[in-house]
């Protein structure tokens, strides 16, 4: 048997479903309770958040779990880091079972969840790290050295004694990452690590993640940013509706739709029926439309098996009935296009 860093076996997580809404945001009325209190209760309907996820992650690998909000990424991470108990299935982290050896699993992991809210804002950056180092059972002398090392590495020396509430989002995220690194755990779980960061801070964090891989850490990161998954991951699992629907290297995933051509259009005056008309054009495989916020423009992404055949009709169609083409370019397939091909929807839908 291979010595995987992480091996998930058919992980399933179901939650009881909340009472359905009546459409006005209010919950529908329950049936009136009968007087007899020992009547048999009807089981609550279950919502499946993770539906049979299996994956193996090699030591030293960066594995990206990519999917839209609500796809099951965070639930998977929460099961792996022992915060959630799977409904069925299990996972082995660094050789330890997540249900039977939870403490050893937590010793093996550095986990970043919920970013800046995962640290204490009324403590300084240094106090936060010293606190969590003690909870990791790092001896005081080693902890002191390690905290200084991380403060230095994260370029927080000048502000380490200030309360975290005075930090920027990027600085808080660096403290949160430092917290995950304190005990030098072999495996890092990073849930949406760049969410909410400005572009520069996000770029710095991505560089840090690549450096951590060079130092030997295995990294499982979740993201809904295609470019991030593409840039960082050795392999990517695309997750949608709780299932891994594709798992390969970024290049391998893109090769799946290599024979396709992608044309991106910016169209003014788009209307719904036009989408149906475009789909009926010969050679058109997939289509996604997204309104540009604050503008009367729509971004349209079209996948075609034969662009030479489809393009004249496509351009003619969008320059019709008051709508017109503003911009157009033809691109190589990206991970976003792979996602559209696999799920029929854009990642940010």
């Amino acid at each position, binding site marked *: 048997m291979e010595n995987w860093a992480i091996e998930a076996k058919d992980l399933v997580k179901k939650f009881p479903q909340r009472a359905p809404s009546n459409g006005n945001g209010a919950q529908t009325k329950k049936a009136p309770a009968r007087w007899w209190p020992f009547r048999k209760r009807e089981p609550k309907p279950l919502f499946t958040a993770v539906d049979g996820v299996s994956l193996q992650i090699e030591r030293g690998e960066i594995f990206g779990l990519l999917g839209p909000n609500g796809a099951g990424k965070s639930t998977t991470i929460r099961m792996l880091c022992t915060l959630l108990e799977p409904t069925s299935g299990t996972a082995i982290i660094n050789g330890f079972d997540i249900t039977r050896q939870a403490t050893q699993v937590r010793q093996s992991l550095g986990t970043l969840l919920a970013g800046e809210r995962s640290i204490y*804002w009324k403590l300084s950056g240094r106090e936060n790290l010293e606190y969590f180092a003690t909870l990791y059972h790092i001896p005081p002398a080693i902890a002191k050295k390690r905290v200084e090392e991380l403060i230095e590495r994260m370029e927080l020396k000048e502000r380490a004694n200030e309360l975290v509430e005075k930090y920027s989002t990027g600085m808080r995220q660096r403290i949160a990452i430092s917290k995950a690194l304190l005990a030098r755990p072999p495996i890092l779980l990073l849930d949406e690590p760049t969410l909410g960061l400005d572009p520069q801070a996000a770029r710095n964090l991505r560089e840090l993640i690549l450096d951590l891989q060079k130092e030997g850490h295995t990294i499982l990161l979740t993201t809904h940013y295609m470019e991030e998954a593409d840039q960082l991951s050795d392999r990517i699992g695309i997750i949608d509706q709780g299932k891994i629907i594709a798992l390969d290297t970024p290049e391998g995933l893109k090769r799946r739709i290599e024979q396709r051509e992608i044309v991106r259009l910016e169209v003014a005056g788009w209307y719904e029926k036009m989408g149906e008309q475009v789909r009926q054009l010969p050679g058109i495989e997939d289509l996604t439309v997204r309104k540009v916020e604050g503008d009367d423009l729509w971004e349209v992404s079209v996948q075609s098996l034969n662009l030479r055949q489809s393009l004249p009709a496509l351009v003619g169609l969008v320059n019709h009935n008051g709508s017109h083409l503003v911009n157009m370019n033809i691109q190589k397939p990206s991970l976003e296009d792979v996602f559209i091909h696999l799920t029929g929807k854009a990642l940010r839908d």
Partner: protein
Amino acid sequence: MTVETQSLPAGSLARPSFSSDLRALWAVAYREWLYVVRYPTWALSLLVWPVIFPLLYLLTARALSGADGSGLAQFQANTGVGDYVGYIVVGTTIWMWQNVVLWNVGFSLRGEQMRGTLESNWLMPTRRFTYLLGSSIPHLLTMMLFLAISAFEFAVLFGVRFEGSLWLAMLVVLVSIPSVYGLGFAFASLVITAREANAFVFLVRGLVMIFCGITYPVNLLPAWMQPIAAFLPQTYIIRAMRSAALSTAGLEAIVPDLQILLVFGLAWLVLGYGMFQWMERRARKSGAIGQY
């Protein structure tokens, strides 16, 4: 649970041991203390509340006893105590102690959950009960300060004469701690499961207020209410404290109450720990730890 060193991941800086467990407990207590002192308004309430709260009952008692205090004879007949001020302030202070424990200890995990730090703590390889136990320590210390300030203020502002023994009063406090904090632990687990504290606090403090005799002797309660009072540890804490602080009856007078309090204390600590374990298992299934 502390893991064996040989089963630790290679390269880890962690060295779990009994002393590292104690250091973790201390770290939680110190972190909670930093939070207490960095929200300094608590100091104001520490000074003001001991005076304001019993005042309501003291003024009511003064009104009922008449301008010449002629009604006090009946009070003395009922309670065996002539100093109604001391009688009331002991009862109200114990009530406030339990009330503050319900809010502070009972709300400690929920507060972490609302801040978003509970999951961070839960991810650490530290025994999870440590967080509840550790965060209670600073509140225990501030409550000891609260009791001392209360006694000082009552003596100076209301002229209460604590004729009993300070050591016996401290013994009563010490023996009461397991009951008072055991209830707080059980409460913390309920609050994090229900994600709501107010209804529970109002219920428990209302029960203590009515059944435990904070301003009147329990034997004045209607007959059907008195057995309920007998099942609440605060009834014995208040009675023992009145005897210890206000009378010269000595240790013998409070021994039976202290024995009952030790039994209650053990029961509440076991119940508090059991409820925490139940909550922790339930939260692992439902994902409640990360929910706001």
